[in-house]
């Protein structure tokens, strides 16, 4: 499992919220952040004008944004950047990558080296994911 994400400096400022971006006239190439309670379906009309979406983890054990990322990629076919923000720790990175995040802003003090090692333990998984949609049984056959 490669698909190493881009690691973003912890001090890089947050993107405007989706509402702020819309209020500013929804300029093309928008980079916005959304709450983890937002239904990605509500972004359908905006997606062609969005270059990047930041999904938020208020606590790293709050797993809602994994479902948002997966829906953005697999259902809404969003091809721009999906960035994990908030309380993001290195041990989440394998899950983030598999659900469609391609950029990770780790919590201050986390080491990207640990995240890279965390990506190397498994040579495959049972169920499909965003990069390998087929489950193991369909690949092994």
């Amino acid at each position, binding site marked *: 499992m490669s698909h190493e994400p881009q690691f973003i400096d912890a001090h890089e400022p947050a993107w405007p919220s989706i509402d702020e971006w819309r209020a500013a006239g929804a300029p093309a190439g928008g980079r916005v952040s959304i709450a983890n309670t937002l*239904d990605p379906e509500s972004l359908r009309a905006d997606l062609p004008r969005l270059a990047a979406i930041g999904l938020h983890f208020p606590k*790293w*054990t*709050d*797993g*809602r944004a*994994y*479902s948002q990322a*997966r829906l953005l*990629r*697999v*259902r809404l*076919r969003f091809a721009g950047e999906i960035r994990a923000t908030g309380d993001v*720790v290195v*041990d989440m990175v*394998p*899950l983030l990558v*598999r*659900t469609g995040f391609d950029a990770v802003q780790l919590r201050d003090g986390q*080491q990207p080296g*640990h995240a890279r*090692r*965390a990506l190397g*333990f*498994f*040579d*495959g*998984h*049972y*169920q*499909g*994911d965003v990069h390998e*949609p*087929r*489950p*193991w*049984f*369909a690949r*092994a*056959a």
Partner: protein
Amino acid sequence: MYRYTDFDRRFVRARAAQYRDQLERHQRGELSDDDFRPLRLQNGWYLQRHAPMLRVAVPYGELSSRQLRALARVAREHDLQDAGTPRERGGYGHFTTRQNLQFNWIPLARSADVMELLAEADLHGIQTSGNCIRNITSDALAGIAPDEVVDPRPYCEILRQWSTLHPEFAFLPRKFKIAVTGAREDRAAIAWHDIGLQLLKNDAGEVGFRVLVGGGMGRTPVIATEVAAFVPWQQILVFIEAIVRVYNRYGRRDNLYKARIKILVKAEGARFVDAVGAEFRAILEHDADGAAHLIPQAELDRVAAHFELPDGVRAEPSRGIAPAGDAPLAYRRWLERNVHAHRVSGHRAVTLSLKRPGQAPGDVTADQMDTAAALAERFSHGELRVTHDQNLLLPWVREADLLALWRAAKDAGFATPNIGLLTDMIACPGGDFCGLANARSIPIAAAITERFQDLDELYDIGDIDLHMSGCMNSCGHHHSGHIGILGVDKDGAEWYQVSLGGADGSTLSGAAVAGKVIGPSFSADEVPDVVEAVIDTYRSRRAANERFIDTVRRVGLEPFKTAANAVRRETAEAA
């Protein structure tokens, strides 16, 4: 039973290596206690009262003798400490209602070594704790029960694989438990689970699942709601994905006690069912590769091949199991209580009772594990099952071997003929071990066991489910006991709430329902007297051949309440 592939083996070894990396970062101070906790939990490591607890997964309750010997080795070599009473020195395990095995005394510093040792025997602790999809449970008689419609084990294995390290569902609002049955009788308490699956055949003979969602115990006992009467087996992974996604997105995370899916199902009702249906259709109709997790026939066949009859098991004419006229009474009783019908003619399933004086319900020492493994090798093709009520079961015993098995089981202390009787109680480890418990379970279980040692009396009382939990988390399933005992904390003292009339959903117990509390809590000393008073009330009130649960339903709680109140001592003064 299922045999690991090379991929499965690489997978559990990779998991052990990943865990070692996390443990070492924790030991070096690079991973705080708070950040390490969810990671160790998802490998089965709790920190509790005295030491860490390790919960090892026994998927759908199937265990090989080789695995049980590996668990014995873990108990003997790692589950140890050098101080305290004999019970506090470790060296034993505890089988749980969810068919897992727990150790209580392994130092955390050895935890990565133990995971590697387990991986060598195709064992692990993946998702035995944490807010994720837990180990899948099933009927202990899966694949051997005469009333089975569809063998659930291949589907359990496919579900096990699908749910293992699912990247989207590792951090749900709360823990998530799935139980599967394929028999006419529900021996897996499916209505008490987050998802309960009943395999059945439709009028056309096709196999599918009746799907229940939102059952659970805890503070708010809820019986699961049917969300689909028939999901074709090919679609079950997709259907479960839809359920878990709806839960992950909309389940409450603001209040620990309202975070289980049962609360969402109750609050949303039909809207929840509609949301699952809409999500299910969206996956199949709109998602890129949305059909990828439909199960092909070839995959079902591949997995089902693991569950064919063991080599050497073949139907033979049954000569019945009526004992010779001069057979010992203890053997007759064992045949009556511990030996179960089998779908393969000439065979029986046999329960090894883990309910006996001097040991806590479900406990086994390292030596006892080795002995049980040897019995499995000699009498049951090296296979065992862990039962929901915390016993072991040998699934492939020839009728002709029953007498020899009884003698060997008796020598090993596994032949207490009490299966389904009062002393075959379910109990959690309670306050002696568990950091969550409000009160101890083990001394109460021991006192009741002592009180009811007369087998004639036990047989006269007959079939009864006594379930005991040390706190509201309900690991001892007190809600579903005909008699339920719940430990509660009042001003730092241990008290026990007693309920009557609960049911797990089995034929004997009737439709799943939570028991009703019979008044204010009792003191620990009073509990055995209360149980005795309740039992005496039953014996004086019962109609001919009427079982305890039926008498409770017929006459209502009042007479039992009156009898229980009459034995109050300390609690009478407190009130």
